[in-house]
């Protein structure tokens, strides 16, 4: 990232999102420097997904979100598409088109650069040579070499999540929003996806990732905690004491930080990626 470096600064100022009477985000302010990486934690329903959706204007907000010098919620449609093209998203439920070949799903990372003609060409005949090369390289990076023409729905969940990462690699976004990317994948895939995301971050992309696994979140230099729509912690993980964690997670017994109560049996002590909580895969809150 060179000249566009400053364009990737994200600033969220006094943002609130209401669904009817329910305030999903309540006066949230957050500044993310270009190239920074931070983890967002919080109970189910705290507003993590809503925050990510607000950044790409998938929901309306009050307050202001700036990406570089552009105010997201006042952009024209065309400008918004440009911004979205430089924001990469990855979700817990893959969100690929199941009927398309895996390689086409990955190639769609470049969708914002396709004119009408190239769009049609890609639709009918697949990505052109240059894009196909990029896609193949990306698929190889995530360990799916030679799988580009496989039908996406035939891939396993973990493989699909890696296709989603390949799409990011094709897109080369300046900002990555990863919403519980490990909620439905195995530990090996988690590490793999994690590495790929860190590598993109090293190349200059800012990385915002929402996590249910506090131990994993502590591997980030900055942790932001949401509770009932408000930021209740923003800082380095060292200062994230047990009391603070208990406060963040109180009222949601399911989601207590893992490894903190060794006396408690059951899946909560599982210290790997949290595959026990697939909540939200069915409901509105999965975004």
């Amino acid at each position: 990232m060179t000249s566009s470096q400053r364009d990737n600064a994200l600033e969220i100022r006094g943002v609130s999102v209401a669904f009817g009477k329910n305030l999903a985000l309540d006066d949230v302010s957050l500044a993310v420097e270009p190239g920074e990486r931070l983890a967002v934690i919080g109970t189910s329903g705290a507003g993590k997904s809503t925050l990510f959706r607000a950044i790409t204007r998938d929901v309306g907000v009050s307050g202001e979100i700036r990406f570089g010098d552009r105010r997201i919620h006042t952009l024209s449609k065309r400008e918004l598409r440009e911004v979205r093209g430089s924001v990469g998203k990855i979700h817990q439920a893959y969100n690929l088109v199941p009927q398309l070949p895996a390689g086409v799903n990955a190639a769609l990372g470049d969708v914002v650069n396709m004119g009408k003609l190239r769009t049609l060409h890609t639709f009918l005949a697949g990505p052109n040579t240059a894009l196909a090369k990029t896609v193949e390289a990306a698929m190889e990076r995530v360990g799916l070499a030679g799988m580009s023409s496989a039908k996406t729905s035939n891939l396993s969940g973990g493989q699909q999540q890696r296709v989603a990462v390949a799409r990011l690699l094709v897109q080369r976004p300046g900002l990555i929003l990863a919403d519980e990317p490990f909620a439905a994948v195995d530990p090996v895939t988690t590490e793999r996806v994690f590495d790929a995301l860190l590598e993109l971050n090293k190349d200059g992309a800012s990385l915002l990732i929402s996590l249910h696994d506090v131990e994993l979140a502590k591997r980030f230099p900055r942790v932001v905690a949401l509770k009932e729509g408000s930021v209740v912690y923003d800082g380095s993980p060292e200062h994230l004491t047990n009391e603070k964690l208990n406060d963040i997670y109180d009222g949601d017994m399911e989601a207590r930080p893992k490894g903190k109560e060794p006396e408690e049996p059951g899946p909560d002590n599982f210290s790997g990626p949290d595959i026990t909580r697939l909540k939200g895969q069915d409901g509105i809150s999965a975004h």
Partner: protein
Amino acid sequence: MASPPTKYEGRIGGAVPRFSWGSSLAILIVVGLAGWSYYGTEFDIVDLLTNTEPATRFVSEMFPPDFSTATLQATGQGVLETFHMSFLGALIGAVVAFPLAALGTRGVDTVGASRTERVLRVVPYHVARFILNVFRSVPDILWALVFVVALGLGPFPGTLALAVHSAGVLGKLYSETLEAVPSRPVEALASTGADGFQSFLFGMLPQGMSNFTSLTLYMWECNIRSATILGFVGAGGIGQQILISMNLFDYSKVATLVGATVVVVLVVDRFSAAVRKRITD
């Protein structure tokens, strides 16, 4: 609807609703309508069971069916014409329905769209829906009458009638399919920067494709049934032959024609059902 808590009677009841004024009224209305229609249609079960002479004569004169070369030739021709009409009707219908369905489907991404943008988007939507409604709500036999008056007798006006009606039905079913497609992948595309056209092409279309195909095949099934009666108003197909033979009291020829129709309808039904099953599995 805050009704006062009713006294618990210690019974839960089965799946059939228990007595209520609402349900008794509904039953009364159904019985009333049935009686009224009974008189309105001069429905006479006694007549049907006692006055059997014309029916038996009709049936007995149908047998043995006429298997003469001329009749077989006419039957083959009629069957083939019916087949052609139904197939082309469904195909043209699908081609016309598709763009109208695409326009008549609500898009996903309207957050932050300005008022004018929304209005601009709503106009083609309502125009497309309106056209589809007109196409669909006029039955194909009426369309056939219209086209026969405009273009003269023959299979061409019949095919057009089927095409127009099919376009209306398919257009509605297509756009319902598009609206029911899982929205997450489409939203994911939009938030990667895809425009409406790209989201449609890569998000909605692939997810709706197998349904489109099976709906179109189903339309063809329906068309082959319709095509057999369009001949009654002079719009081609085997119906025309059936009508002529009826008027000539040539019941054994009618038997052959009707038998052939049943066979063709069954064959197309089976074929289309088998293909549809393969597609959706």
